[in-house]
């Protein structure tokens, strides 16, 4: 035996901390169009390479290239840009509203808009997302009313969930958006259960589970993979790797693994790794996975490589743990600018139309906000009643809750 050595605790450290120069040279970014697109029914073992690369469609010149290009027509791409712009405008207004004390809390999507906006476009009515707090684009792309979203954020009397949940914890069955939970990762295995139910009924409804890089460490992630691997129901297991989990860089959750996508391999689940800032790549990968689901080929895992450009939430200031400049050094660029460049390159868009669209969208958002604020905000206007606090604990209110409600005077 070679020399022994006392063990030591290997604590992964990010390459840079505040004060250091941002450096993403360790992120290997393949050229757009370079990665092959296998048939959706190719065997998982043959697809291993796709978990260790990054599927990209949009190149530096704004062209859509390679085998993953072409999953959307021009109108759809224009819609996509609009959705992302809408999400960004919405975020900006809601962040500001939170600072003005109109809500208790907010979480934005800055830099990650492509993922939820494009993914939704691969789904059909009846499909169900099990999202985290950072996929509001699923709602926007599905046409959910902005005003309702805002009412939820304001916890006012128009809030569909009656003020019971933290801001951004939306719910809309109709729009394929499962009620959000504050306990990370729990939804991931529930998504598998939904898909199992569809399989038991033989009905074509796919489920999409969502999870962050950090949250893959949770037990529910394992439960989801085990059950998905065993029963092979129509589920897409999405991992949004935005490099950070509050102050903790993705290396702590990833450990010695090559990528998060590779976690699928231990379970025989095909896994793709995709440029999360490339609207077209996200859509193409989602469509590929959805096709697998709809052809009863079983689960698919997708890792979206992206960057959380903003703070974790309004309670967080990332300057304490990462250099401010890190975001701009991020090599995958801004998803809105990239899709915009593509549309311009195709002759379908221009700087002027973009500026005009930005203004229109902001008007729309502001109008919705006025409407929502006319109902109320967290501390003023019409709010859900204390009576609502006692409803929906059970379908029928049991005697002890009736008694407690009476004690409050309702």
């Amino acid at each position, binding site marked *: 035996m070679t020399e022994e050595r006392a063990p030591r605790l290997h604590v992964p450290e990010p390459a840079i901390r505040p004060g250091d120069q941002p450096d993403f040279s360790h992120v290997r970014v393949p050229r757009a169009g370079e990665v092959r697109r296998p048939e959706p029914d190719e065997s998982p073992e043959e697809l291993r390479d796709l978990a260790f690369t990054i599927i990209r469609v949009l190149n530096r010149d704004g062209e859509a290239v390679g085998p993953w290009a072409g999953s959307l027509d021009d109108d759809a791409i224009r819609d996509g840009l609009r959705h992302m712009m809408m999400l960004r405008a919405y975020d900006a207004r809601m962040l500001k509203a939170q600072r003005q004390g109109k809500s208790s809390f907010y979480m934005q999507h800055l830099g990650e808009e492509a993922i939820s906006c494009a993914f939704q476009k691969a789904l059909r009515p009846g499909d169900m997302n099990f999202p985290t707090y950072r996929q509001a684009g699923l709602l926007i792309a599905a046409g959910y009313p902005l005003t309702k979203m805002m009412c939820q954020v304001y916890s006012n009397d128009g809030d569909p969930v009656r003020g019971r949940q933290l801001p951004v914890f939306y719910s809309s069955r109709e729009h394929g958006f*499962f009620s959000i939970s504050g306990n990370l990762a729990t939804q991931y295995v529930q998504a598998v259960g939904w898909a199992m139910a569809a399989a038991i009924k033989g009905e074509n409804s796919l489920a999409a589970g969502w999870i962050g890089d950090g949250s893959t460490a949770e037990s*529910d992630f394992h439960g989801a993979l085990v059950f998905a691997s065993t029963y092979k129901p129509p589920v897409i297991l999405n991992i949004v790797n935005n490099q950070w989990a509050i102050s903790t860089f993705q290396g702590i959750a990833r450990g010695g693994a090559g990528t998060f996508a590779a976690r699928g391999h231990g379970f025989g689940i095909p896994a793709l790794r995709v440029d999360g800032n490339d609207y077209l790549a996200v859509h193409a990968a989602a469509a590929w996975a959805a096709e697998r689901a709809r052809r009863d080929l079983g689960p698919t895992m997708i890792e979206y490589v992206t960057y959380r450009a903003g703070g974790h939430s309004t309670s967080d200031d990332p300057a304490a743990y990462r250099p401010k400049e890190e975001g701009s050094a991020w090599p995958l660029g801004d998803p809105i600018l990239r899709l915009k460049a593509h549309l311009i390159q195709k002759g379908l868009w221009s700087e002027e139309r973009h500026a005009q669209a930005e203004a229109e969208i902001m008007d729309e958002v502001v109008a919705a906000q006025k409407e929502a604020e006319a109902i109320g905000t967290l501390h003023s206007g019409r709010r859900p009643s204390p009576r609502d606090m006692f409803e929906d604990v059970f*379908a029928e209110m049991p005697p002890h809750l009736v008694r407690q409600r009476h004690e409050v005077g309702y």
Partner: protein
Amino acid sequence: MARMSMIEAIRNAHEVAMEADENVVVMGEDVGYFGGVFRCTAGLQKRFGVERCFDTPISELGIVGTAIGMAAYGLKPVVEIQFADYMYPAYDQLVSEAARLRYRSAGEFTCPMVVRMPTGGGIFGAQTHSQSPEALFTHVAGLKTVVPSTPADAKGLLLAAINDPDPVIVLEPKRLYNGPFDGHFDRPSRSWSKDEKGEVEPGHYEIPLGKASTVRDGSAATLVTYGTMVHVALAAVEESGADIEVIDLRTLLPLDLDAVAASVNRTGRCIVLHEATLTSGYGAELAALIQSECFYALEAPILRVAGWDTPYPHAQEWDYFPGPERVKRAIATVLEG
């Protein structure tokens, strides 16, 4: 009417429910081909197909987590946790998810799910095959909790639970699976087939959730209990010769407080009996409610008889188990007090 063991009654409830509603699906560890380590699901896979009754990986989190997804979809999953002692890995899914889904989505997503689990001791199962975790469920807003004490109740409560629109925890006292047990561990076991309480109606019927049953009338004191302890209570009361009313709660939450309070207000004395660890057990809630509802009628302190505040031991099982001797001592004390 036929005599059935509690196991047969539970199996029969499954059959009735699965026959009536194709959305009822059953899953859990070893419940499929084999029919469950206690045989409660025997024959279901054969009869209803592998998609309606199947084995799961050993992940209680996965069982409950996927069941929540299924329930939200529109199925009615009835899942088995092999022993109540093994529900902890699923506790987050039960507490944070199943219990709150209706509330947090304002009724848009619901969780009509039943989680069955064999509960309690008396089979030399030691610390991980003996626990009674009911208080860990009654503290959680959004969960209903049920504990049957006879085959007929087991069937009727399970059918009510399956038809309930919300998640229901069904704790099955495994010491009662094959026959009644009065705590006299040194006497021969009895079988439900030899006991008239083994009578079970065929077909569909429900025991409504939230309704207690007075299993013995009396005027000197009220003994409130559930599950295995109902039989221990009846035996102890009989042996004590005292005139004690015995209430079998059947459902712990929602509690039939009216029935309990009416009785204690009449008798003026009360014993609360359960097998779970005393401190912060469900008996604490009962005592707290009863002292509040019946304060002016109470002539003696409410006495709790329960498992000791230790893990459930193996060799000392019968020193731990709150058997008839302890109950009789409590009866004497509460009647004196």
